[in-house]
């Protein structure tokens, strides 16, 4: 195991991206993700990569489109309002089957909202990342180490399936410091050599490549979208991830992701000490959504509690995961307010008391 060092979540993620071969980063300043840009602006020139501060979020995601289209690993990062601006470009990236990694360090919304941690982008990232039929792979890390591990995975899966991948973090994960280790110690920048589809100049050796999402004939567009959704099935089958703890005998199962899952786990452990039979299941991928894993974790439960830093967005997917077979309650704080383990514990006592 590599040596551990103490790093801020945003900076660890940025370093992990470089080690995953991310050659180009295009970003725009927004709190609370700015450390990613700041870190990469220092590091990229030293490792032969490219850091460019774009004129807008819109420009940044379109730079990613061009760079990814030429076959080079690249990334952009932003926070909630900036992600809204990027959605047009993300839709084109998905429609053109381009791989890239997008970071969303969520803050409170809607509108300008606030700059404190939030999970209110769940719907946007998992259900409405742009116009049209498409998905992105979405990872929800819950620690600084997982920020590092998921970004590496995100680059690999994005390339393998030629689709965008998102790291859905929040201000809490981005700003906190924890010990991390990097598996990849050697930095090797990506090139287009393994991407025969890339528009990087045909060198008079092949017919021209076209990166495009325009299909004026409905049948062709339908075939194109169906082929993409067939690939999605493969992603679902192989790359859905969740972890569960204490669920086997649990009367109440908590479902939470990201930093909220850490808080919820503290509450679950406290509840166990009080003798309440509670467990927790944490999705690591939000798309594909670990519906089976959640159903499995909840199979012996009498009720389910979904905890989020929002007014309740993932809770609908939890209900679908268990086919509404048992009551699903919700506890959440929003606007940048972080739910305290004690609040979650109180909710668990209340739910335990009912049964």
């Amino acid at each position, binding site marked *: 195991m590599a040596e551990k060092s103490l790093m801020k979540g945003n900076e660890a993620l940025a370093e992990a991206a470089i080690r995953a071969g991310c050659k180009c980063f295009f970003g725009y300043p927004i709190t609370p993700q700015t450390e990613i840009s700041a870190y990469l602006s220092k590091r990229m020139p030293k490792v032969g990569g490219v850091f460019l501060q774009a004129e807008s979020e819109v420009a940044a995601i379109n730079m990613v489109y061009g760079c990814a289209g030429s076959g080079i690993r690249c990334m952009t990062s932003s926070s909630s309002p900036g992600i809204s601006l990027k959605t047009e470009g993300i839709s084109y990236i998905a429609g053109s089957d381009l791989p890239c990694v997008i970071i969303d360090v969520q803050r409170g919304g809607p509108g300008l909202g606030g700059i404190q941690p939030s999970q209110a982008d769940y719907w946007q990232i998992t259900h409405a990342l742009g116009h049209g039929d498409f998905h992105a792979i979405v990872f929800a890390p819950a620690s600084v180490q997982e920020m590092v591990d998921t970004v590496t995975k995100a680059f690999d899966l994005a390339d393998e399936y030629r689709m965008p991948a998102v790291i859905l973090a929040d201000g809490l994960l981005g700003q906190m410091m924890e010990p991390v280790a990097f598996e990849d110690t050697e930095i090797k920048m990506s090139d287009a050599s393994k991407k025969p589809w890339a528009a990087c100049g045909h060198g*008079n050796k092949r017919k021209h490549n076209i990166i495009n999402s325009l299909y004026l004939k409905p049948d062709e567009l339908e075939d194109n979208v169906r082929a993409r959704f067939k690939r999605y099935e493969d992603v679902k089958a192989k790359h859905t991830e969740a972890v569960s703890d204490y669920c086997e005998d649990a009367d109440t199962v908590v479902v939470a992701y990201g930093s909220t899952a850490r808080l919820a786990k503290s509450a679950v452990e406290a509840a166990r000490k009080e003798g309440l039979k509670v467990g927790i299941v944490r999705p690591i991928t939000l798309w594909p959504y670990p519906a089976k894993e959640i159903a499995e974790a909840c199979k012996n439960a009498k009720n389910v509690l979904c905890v989020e830093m929002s007014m309740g967005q993932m809770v609908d997917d939890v209900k679908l995961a268990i086919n509404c077979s048992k009551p699903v309650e919700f506890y959440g704080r929003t606007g940048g307010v972080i739910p305290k383990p004690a609040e979650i514990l109180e909710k668990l006592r209340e739910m335990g008391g009912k049964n």
Partner: protein
Amino acid sequence: MPEFKRPHALADVTTHYCPGCTHGIVHRLVAEVIDEMGIEGDTIGVCPVGCSVMAYDYFECDMLEASHGRAPAVATGIKRANPDKFVFTYQGDGDLAAIGTAEIVHAATRGENITVIFINNTTYGMTGGQMAPTTLPGQVTQTTPYGRNPDVEGYPVRVCEMLSTLSGVALAERVTVIDPKNINIAKKAIRKGFEFQKNKQGFSIIEVLSTCPTNWGKTPIEALDRVRTEMIPYYPLGVFKEGAIR
């Protein structure tokens, strides 16, 4: 005997452009320059949204289709990752001078080492002839049925003049393709743009005053006359800035 043939970089297909639309001439000039410089294998083009949205089918070099107005950002992404390749965008006036204003201004001011071919025909052709940022005062379009009134719709944007104030610009030149003499000048300007790029000298934009006979409600030949009598007086031809920035 002199010979005149289709350049290799121009695909051997029938375009979807209306009869008399000068897009075809400009496409050919770009392809001729690519052929003459022997750079087809090292060139990557970026198409806009607008009438030339399907230009990716008309050039034999690698091509990307950008979203509306974002071609300069897309080109930036390609060029930064592949600094030794030739990258050009091909954009219309709605794409470049309305929805894509931020992208073109910032690509220009960064001195992004790309070549921009800018087609100014004073209207949105693809959507059926609405007011463009370059629509002339008084010009009737679908969305200015009483003529563009500067009190209401403001004034047209003179793109080359505006961009020539930026330090990152190596070449800003306005040309037209309404007769063989001007076609020769236009081709030289496009060649210059690609040469600047080859020498890593910065951003170049070649604005081409073009026609839209269909949406102007004119015959192709009348449309050439309109460029001469109405457009050139408002958009004077010539070099607005030329010189290496690096």
